[in-house]
């Protein structure tokens, strides 16, 4: 079976806002397509998303960093986002 790694997660928020999240952080998708109000809302969401403190995993995994998948699930819950798409890299 081919192994693959999650590289990016896309979320949708109210007001047709699309955000993406990868190892480099959060990003508003197509900001030019958003109106002033929606853009301000999207920026406020990115601000909150960037500041999320992910609690460490319970022992014995407490030294392991959370995966992108695990962080996405937490972020979606905290920010009330709908996870709409995942992108993967094939590792062969």
């Amino acid at each position, binding site marked *: 079976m081919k192994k693959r790694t999650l590289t990016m997660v896309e979320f949708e928020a109210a007001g047709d806002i699309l955000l993406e999240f990868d190892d480099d*952080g959060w990003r508003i998708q197509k*900001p030019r397509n958003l109106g002033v109000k929606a853009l301000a809302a999207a*920026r406020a969401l*990115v601000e909150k998303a*960037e500041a999320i*403190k992910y609690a460490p995993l319970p022992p014995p995994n407490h030294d392991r960093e959370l995966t992108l998948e695990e962080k996405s699930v937490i972020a979606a819950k905290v920010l009330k986002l709908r996870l709409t798409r995942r992108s993967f890299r094939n590792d062969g």
Partner: protein
Amino acid sequence: MPHVLAVAYGGGHINALLPVIERLRARPGWRVTVLALTTAAATGVARGIPVVGLRDLPVEDADSRRHGQRLVEGLAANPLVPEAESIAYLGCSYRDLVTAEGEAGAARRYAAEGRAAFLPRPTLVRAITHLHPDLVLSTSAPRAERAALEAAGSLGVPSVCVVDLFALSEEAWVGQVGFATRVCVPMPGVRDRLLTVGRRPEEVVVTGNPVFDRLGDPDLRLRAEALRQARGWSGRRVILWASQPESQDPQLPRRVEAALLATLAADPTRLLVIRPHPNDQYDLPPEGPQVAHSTRADDLAATLALAEVVVTMTSTVGLEAALLGRPVVTFDGSANTPFAPYSRMGISRGAATLDDLAPAVDDALAGRIPAPNLPPPGGATDAVLRVLDGLL
């Protein structure tokens, strides 16, 4: 009313942006906010430019203040940076490290890397969200400047990154697609390298470095000639040696200097002008018929313009000389050569060993070192402004 947020540290970083900032401030109806980090605030204020620090923005909280207070205790006070700003800068940066790595991870990384572990993206996201700029202008420096440009990208704010020199260590982020909408570089070789690692051609513009625009002063030749006359150097073939300290081998600059002194016997008209770096404190060889000293009181640009050849290891003076069309010889045995690879970039004739210095100097004096392919100095500020205007 366009609003530009400029973010810079001190030293070469703020200096690269200041000419652009001053021109933007002079435009009627334009608003420029300068987020001056660490010593950049003093530089900006000295030029009459109002600046803000992180302590002026709603980016601190109880956690950042706690971390900042702790970290500032271990620092020697810097008269150029108010303690409140150090607390804000260190505290916010450390808080963001904790957010990314957890308490234990942050402590481990800070112990191992110090400030190099910082990338305060969440802080800069907050700052940009609060300030609502139409464009973010910064440099290729790590930490907060990198974070500012990454944050601008996250928030959909157009951004311009000004690369002041070679962007070698910075290539890891400046070379990433999406890091700054446009990257302004000082020379074609840097652009070529960034395209090789994946940047798109339309994203990287050869503008020059605005700090070197002063080298394009049309009166520079006159100033150089006046300096030559004043110093009694008429008819002399000036070899300018711009020394600098070498922390891993403090005697290395002295050995380079000795090799240059040995080249003087070949021609009594040769004159070695020694210009030590301010941090390179040593007993200079005494002035004499073939040796002269140049200090910071001397006009550097004029001194470079009058030199027949400029010799350095890795000083920025080498790039300034090349921009003025002067032949440059570099001694490439410095530990810092990989970070300022003048000869590899085609800017200098490199001397790999001390024995290679004399033939390189001879070639330079004989006109056998071709001029490097660099944009003539004087138009960088205008070029960066054109890039900004294209995004607004």
